[in-house]
């Protein structure tokens, strides 16, 4: 985007970067904040339908779509209370920590092929890391509130989130392993084609892993039945008991932000990302063209991705309004006795599948791509560089063939080991 401003609008480079950065920030904050508004409204509607009632109907017309905005105005107008016993600085800062972490993780989340604020080679890892930081928000809020209920909530949150990071990480590693990259754009592109290319259907183990991932993701963003940190019927409201007004709404925005984030991550890692079940744009050839058609193809992909993420969020809502809440020891048992072993089993199974090159759904005939055609751009680049370098040097038959970095590099290692290094 910076290039666009630089070349088309003839802005100086630094300014072009600045404008591009601001646009990215604004777009992402819209995803988080406006997304939260929509999701809160959606949650009300979904819960209303689940409970055989209508939900909001008045504000903003028939569907009450302005309800959250009205609530937002109410929250802004509300008094911002700090309890006497609170640790003033941390109490004020805690909501922003959570919101900032949730917002920051969106930097690496691609919304369509190449539509990402910051291309990151380690996107998956970065998102997990930043989500891990979000846990500080409830901990600090709980500690700083000076309320016993809040402290209980904080301790529960800390124990729960730290435990669930283990199976979550294990599940996320599986698609990365299959795709051979931590780059989300590449992972998404490798699933282009029919829905059989989606990693969840790659082999039986990945499907299990996808289910475990979604469970753990629900737990790590504190949604029912794992919403122990704010368990309303036990801890009043847990870590945000003492908060009011806008500060409280920041917790809410962070929660809905991370809900969409983990759902979106699930969509990219396991359910094809921006690739629809049927590759319309590929058949039409739009995704290989350039200009407006490519833009349209990507826009369609973006809508696809948003839809998949929203489906994930709606599933979380559905679960929330159906199931009772688990107890803290049961939450830990679920994590340590079920999720971790199943995730480890799935990981090993998927590894076994890959190492033995058992047939995957990727091999099915039909419209699709070979997963290794879609590599990270730099790998392809490096391959080309290497090839040109190799062409410059006169090849000698005794030389161990130098393969491209990444996929075929292991051949060279294997050859080295087999020759015993005797060269």
């Amino acid at each position, binding site marked *: 985007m910076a290039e666009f401003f630089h070349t088309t609008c003839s802005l*100086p*480079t*630094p*300014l072009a*970067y600045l404008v591009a950065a601001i646009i990215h920030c604004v777009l992402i904050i819209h995803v988080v904040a406006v997304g939260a508004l929509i999701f809160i409204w959606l949650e009300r509607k979904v819960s209303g339908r689940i409970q055989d009632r209508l939900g909001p109907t008045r504000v903003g017309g028939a569907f009450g779509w302005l309800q959250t905005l009205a609530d937002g105005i109410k929250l802004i107008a509300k008094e911002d209370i700090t309890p006497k016993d609170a*640790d003033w*600085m*941390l109490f004020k*800062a805690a909501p922003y920590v959570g919101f900032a972490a949730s917002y920051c993780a969106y930097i690496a989340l691609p919304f369509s092929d190449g539509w990402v604020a910051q291309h*990151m*080679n*380690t996107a998956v*890892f*970065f998102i*997990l*890391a*930043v989500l*891990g*930081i979000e*846990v*500080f928000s409830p*901990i*600090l809020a709980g*500690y*700083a509130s000076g309320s016993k209920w809040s*402290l209980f909530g*904080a*301790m529960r949150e*800390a124990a729960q989130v*730290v435990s669930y*990071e283990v199976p979550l990480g294990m599940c996320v590693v599986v698609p990365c392993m299959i795709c051979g*990259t*931590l780059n989300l754009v590449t992972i998404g592109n490798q699933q282009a084609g029919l829905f059989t290319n989606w990693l969840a259907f790659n082999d039986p183990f990945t499907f299990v892993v996808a289910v475990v991932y979604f469970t753990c993701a629900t737990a790590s963003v504190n949604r029912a039945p794992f919403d122990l940190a704010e368990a309303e019927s036990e801890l009043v409201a847990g870590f945000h008991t003492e908060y009011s007004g806008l500060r409280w709404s920041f917790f809410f925005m962070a929660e809905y932000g991370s809900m969409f984030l983990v759902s979106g991550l699930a969509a990219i890692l396991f359910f094809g990302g921006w690739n629809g079940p049927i590759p319309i744009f590929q058949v039409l050839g739009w995704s290989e063209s350039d200009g407006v058609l490519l833009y349209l193809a990507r826009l369609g992909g973006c809508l696809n991705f948003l839809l998949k993420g929203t489906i994930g969020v709606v599933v979380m809502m559905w679960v929330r309004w159906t199931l009772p809440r688990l107890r803290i020891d049961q939450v830990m048992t679920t994590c340590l006795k079920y999720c971790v072993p199943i995730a480890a089993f799935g990981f090993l199974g998927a590894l076994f599948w890959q190492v033995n090159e058992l047939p995957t759904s990727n091999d099915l005939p039909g419209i699709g791509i070979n997963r290794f055609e879609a590599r*990270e*751009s*730099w*790998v392809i*680049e*490096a391959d080309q*560089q290497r090839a040109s370098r190799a062409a410059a040097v006169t090849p000698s038959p005794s030389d161990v063939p*130098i393969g491209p*970095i*990444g996929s075929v*590099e292991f051949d*060279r*290692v294997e050859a*080295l*080991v087999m*020759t*015993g*290094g005797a*060269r």
Partner: protein
Amino acid sequence: MLLAAFDWHSLFFMFFALLTCGFAVAMLFSDNVVHMAFYLILSLGASAGLFFLAGAEFVGAMQLMIYVGGTLVLLIFGVMLTAQSRFISMKTRSGEWVMALVLGGSLLFLLLTAAFRVEDWRDGNPNAADIGIAESKTTTQIGMGFTGVRVDRLDAPEDSTLVPGMSGYLLPFVIVSVHLLVVLVGAAYMARTKRRATSTGAAA
């Protein structure tokens, strides 16, 4: 034009460096142990930004994940477990302050002079902008490095004393893994649950 001379890299470096150092100093001068932990989080998080700027994105993400997300949560846990009001704020005697600041100041002076002593370190890489994207993406290279393939050293002459394929970081990696395992077992042992014993000493 001023903007043309503008350097984002320097600007962000200044920004993150100031945050890192500022929060570190704030941590030093804070008496409340919870505030200290909070400042430490911010300081370490900002230094992850410095890692990203230096092109070490994998290490930066690792810093965020393990250091900030793991170690510090553990630390805050410890703080909360021992958070009795009298231990929250413990003042340091002023004599100790003077002593520590004098010693620390001289150490800092020493390190700063050392930092600018070597000419090679001082000038930066004038060709930084020309570094190809392939060389700057280090994640896969690190991964290969662990398995013994030094992607960044493919052109280097082979050292005949090394076993091929083992010239990377596989051995240290295994050592660190075993170390981590031992440490975790040890930590779990030390922090194990309450034991009740009868007066004869047998575990009940």
